[in-house]
């Protein structure tokens, strides 16, 4: 019962400030631009003689996966900011006064963010599939919207976005400083991890480790991505293994954050 009350409260927290929809608007615009843009480029290349990089059948999932491959940073930010803003604005005081059991608060917040992450997943897919399918259709390529594979991909993408939001919660608990958390999210997702994944793909033994990087695990879960295309994509986890890797990262970060920052004195 308490966890339900806490979940309701956390959902109200999320929806009563501007953050969620500002992030959602930027994400939808960014994903739609990437998906539509790449769909136009690849479709155009495909129609020219002598340069068929991809078959028409491979194209739609690749385009649609921009929802996660570029969109995943948004649920991470939402999750991290949901936690760090409590520290920044000292709102942990009224939060813990209303719900003295701090584990309940964190569980409620985690559940709310997983739901929000899934919703971000839906929005990102609407953007990537909407823009992507429109452009593909314009070039006369079958957008495969009726295919069961496409809808399985949709389900896995939503799961991935939900798990990314959970990782954000864990990161926020681990690094309560809002500025530090934002810098870590952006530096890691936009710079460090792409570099690491590229570096890891050079030798076999490093590729075996590299597939456990969160972004690689996410791509494995979703099943398709622009990154797996550029790095050969030979070594990948199974989709469910990718999900487990993301869930484990979220769980470990949250657990450590719970014991280090969440249970500390609030002053």
């Amino acid at each position, binding site marked *: 019962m308490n966890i339900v009350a806490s979940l309701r409260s956390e959902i109200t927290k999320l929806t*009563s400030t501007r953050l969620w929809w500002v992030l959602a608007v930027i994400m939808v615009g960014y994903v739609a631009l990437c998906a539509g843009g790449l769909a136009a480029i690849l479709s155009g290349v495909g129609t020219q003689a002598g340069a068929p990089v991809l078959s028409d059948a491979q194209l739609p999932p690749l385009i649609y996966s921009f929802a996660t491959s570029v969109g995943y940073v948004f649920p991470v930010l939402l999750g991290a900011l949901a936690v760090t803003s409590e520290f920044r604005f000292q709102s942990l005081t009224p*939060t813990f006064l209303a719900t003295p059991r701090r584990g309940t608060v964190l569980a409620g917040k985690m559940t709310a963010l997983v739901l929000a992450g899934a919703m971000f997943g839906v929005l990102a897919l609407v953007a990537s599939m909407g823009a992507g399918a429109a452009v593909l259709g314009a070039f006369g390529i079958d957008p495969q919207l009726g295919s069961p594979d496409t809808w399985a991909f949709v389900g896995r993408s939503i799961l991935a976005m939900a798990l990314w939001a959970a990782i954000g919660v864990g990161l926020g608990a681990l690094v309560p400083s809002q500025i530090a958390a934002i810098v870590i999210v952006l530096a890691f997702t936009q710079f460090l991890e792409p570099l690491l994944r590229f570096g890891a793909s050079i030798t076999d033994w490093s590729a075996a480790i590299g597939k456990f990087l969160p972004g690689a695990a996410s791509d494995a879960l979703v099943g398709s991505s622009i990154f797996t295309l550029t790095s050969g994509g030979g070594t990948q986890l199974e989709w469910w293994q990718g999900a487990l890797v993301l869930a484990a990262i979220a769980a470990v970060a949250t657990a450590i954050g719970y014991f280090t920052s969440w249970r500390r004195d609030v002053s």
Partner: protein
Amino acid sequence: MPTGVPIEFAHVTKSFGAVDAVSDLSFTVEPGQVTGFLGPNGAGKTTSLRMLLGLVTPTSGTATFGGTTYGRLGSPLTTVGASLEAASFHPGRSARNHLAVYAQAAGLPSTAPDAALEKVGLGAYGARRVGGYSLGMRQRLGLAFALLGDPSVLVLDEPINGLDPEGIKWIRLLLRGMAAEGRTVLISSHLLSEVQQTVDDVIIISHGKLVHRGELSSLDVSDSKQVQVNADDRERLAEVIRSAGFEVANLRSGVLVENADAAAIGRLAFDAGIPLTALSQKRTGLEESFLTLVGEEGAL
């Protein structure tokens, strides 16, 4: 009618490293009256209140509501209403949503936020973002949070700080009314003068230790031995009093005589034929006793 439970501190100590912020603090706050929790800044008031509310873990000792720690209260917000500092808000959230967040967490009815806003006079500003609130409005919103669950115990940290004179009068009436209904009311302040018209009992701490506990009137040490006196010929007046064996100090507006009473000094001047322009027994007053209790730092 909610009946207040006593607040009980029993040998509460909080150490930060080698420093004791609060040491061996024991006292009880009874329902049905307003109790002032006083001490200079840094005396440990806020740390004590945060321990009482389960936000800070005591190094040793317990702080309870009638024997139950805050974390074990079945329904915390309907038992205890608390407001700590003025700034625990997300500035981008409206006041009504701010309260709704915590009302939902505590399972209170959905009418609770608006009722609390009405009680503190913010009814018309509920939809406004808290970031645009003035200090006085934030204080009222903090109080609205405390009143959200119509609690039987109120714990308020510096509730008067930042209120305008009208607000001070208003909160005084509110707190007195709540105490009269049988609730327990504990308010902290670093200024005695700020709360002396509101409180019945005082608990004074300094350097994390209890230095005084009792009724407000117990602070009133009015057996002052100082007399302030003045005359047109101040030089001669001082000379006459000094030669009668008193210790005399010059003030800007007269002469201060130690260990004397006004009648004796008046008679001395009359006998010497000096017309007085002023004569009064100086009262030490509450503030003076308070400052003596808390030491030099209190003057800051």
